[in-house]
């Protein structure tokens, strides 16, 4: 029974992926991609990784899908050259070779499987965290997570720098949703609930599946919903509090990391005895920055100021 379920799910993922890569028009391809993200999220639950499932559905499918949807009209304007038959055959051969090589690796994985689960279980209790994924992200592989927050910030700087100088004084582009009573109603009803859900996902992430990235993505979605419904205007680029929220996560993390040198003897080491409060403080800052950065990446570069 389980294998039937897994097989059907795998087929669904494959079909969605095929539609996303092969559909001729950009809009159906992007919609199929969002479905692909959702189906992939269920596959992650089947693989025993609910934390990854939430991230895949929220960031991999949801927010990425939204960014791609907003680019569909731009893609339609671009010139498109059809691939020659020779190129198609070569691509097919290449992808078959890639599949064969990877399938060989998957089938021939070493037995017994190497694992760091024991090491994580041994070192998790002193951190005061119950969720091993959060433990790995914030403590054991803290440098990865620090650099990840920096990558998000750099991507946003990259997006912003694509706008001409004169746009910098203006507001960020809105979501261009036509005014609609249903959207307005949804934003007023869902946004307060979603705010609580997002904060809960972050807070509960210390002990059960969830965490800064999943919670931050939900908070970002609520902000975007409010902006799309026109209840609040998109923020201005020069808003000082906006910039402080963007910088809070990476710099709080970096500050705690440098303090670790003096207090605990190593970069990104947490002081013994008060690990949990310090970890939560860092997580609050990261969640805030992730939420704001994700939302601003969706909004894109600032609009040109109306003359």
């Amino acid at each position, binding site marked *: 029974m389980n294998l039937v379920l897994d097989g059907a799910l795998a087929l669904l993922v*494959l079909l969605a992926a095929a539609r996303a*890569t092969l559909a001729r028009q950009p809009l159906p391809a992007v919609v199929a*991609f969002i479905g692909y993200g959702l189906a992939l999220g269920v596959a992650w639950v089947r693989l025993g990784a609910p934390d990854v499932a939430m991230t895949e559905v929220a960031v991999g499918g949801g927010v990425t899908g939204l960014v791609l949807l907003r680019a569909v009209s731009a893609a339609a304007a*671009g010139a498109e050259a059809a691939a020659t038959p020779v190129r198609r055959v070569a691509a097919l051969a290449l992808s078959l070779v890639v599949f064969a090589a990877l399938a060989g690796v998957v089938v021939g*994985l070493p037995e017994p499987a190497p694992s*760091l689960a024991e090491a994580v279980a041994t070192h998790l209790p002193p951190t005061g965290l119950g969720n091993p994924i959060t433990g790995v992200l914030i403590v054991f592989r803290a440098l990865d997570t620090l650099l*990840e927050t920096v990558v998000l910030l750099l991507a946003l700087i990259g997006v912003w720098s694509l706008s001409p100088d004169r746009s910098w004084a203006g507001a960020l582009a809105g979501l261009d949703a036509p005014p609609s009573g249903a959207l307005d109603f949804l934003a007023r009803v869902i946004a307060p609930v979603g705010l609580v859900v997002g904060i809960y996902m972050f807070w509960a992430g210390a002990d059960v599946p969830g965490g800064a990235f999943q919670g931050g993505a939900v908070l970002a979605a609520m902000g975007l919903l409010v902006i799309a419904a026109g209840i609040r205007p998109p923020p201005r680029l020069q808003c000082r509090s906006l910039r402080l929220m963007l910088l809070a996560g990476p710099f709080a993390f970096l500050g705690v990391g440098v303090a670790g040198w003096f207090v605990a003897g190593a970069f990104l080491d947490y002081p013994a005895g008060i690990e949990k409060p310090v970890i939560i403080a860092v997580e609050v800052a990261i969640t805030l920055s992730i939420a704001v950065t994700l939302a601003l*990446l969706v909004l894109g570069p600032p609009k040109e100021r109306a003359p």
Partner: protein
Amino acid sequence: MSGATLYGLLGAALVAMGVYGLVVEGSALKRILAFNVLGGGIFLVFGAVAQRGAGAGFPGDPVPQALVITGIVVAFSATALAVALVKRLAELRADDGEGGA
């Protein structure tokens, strides 16, 4: 066949699909889509490896799972930047078209 092997093979198939799309597609947006499908496949192969490493009461090895979360967010950052570049390119092309007309 175990669940981990099935999803590992699914991941391999997704990577192959992504490679095909990257080579064949002419439009930048479709290439970005193919890149994301490819990335999802790589994460899934890693997820199969993680599930095989289950132990100590965890349903999977938490270290590769956490790395996948990092990977998904970094892939999103790259996608958002790439999409912004595509849109800017379309704007410039539209401006050129107006200038020539």
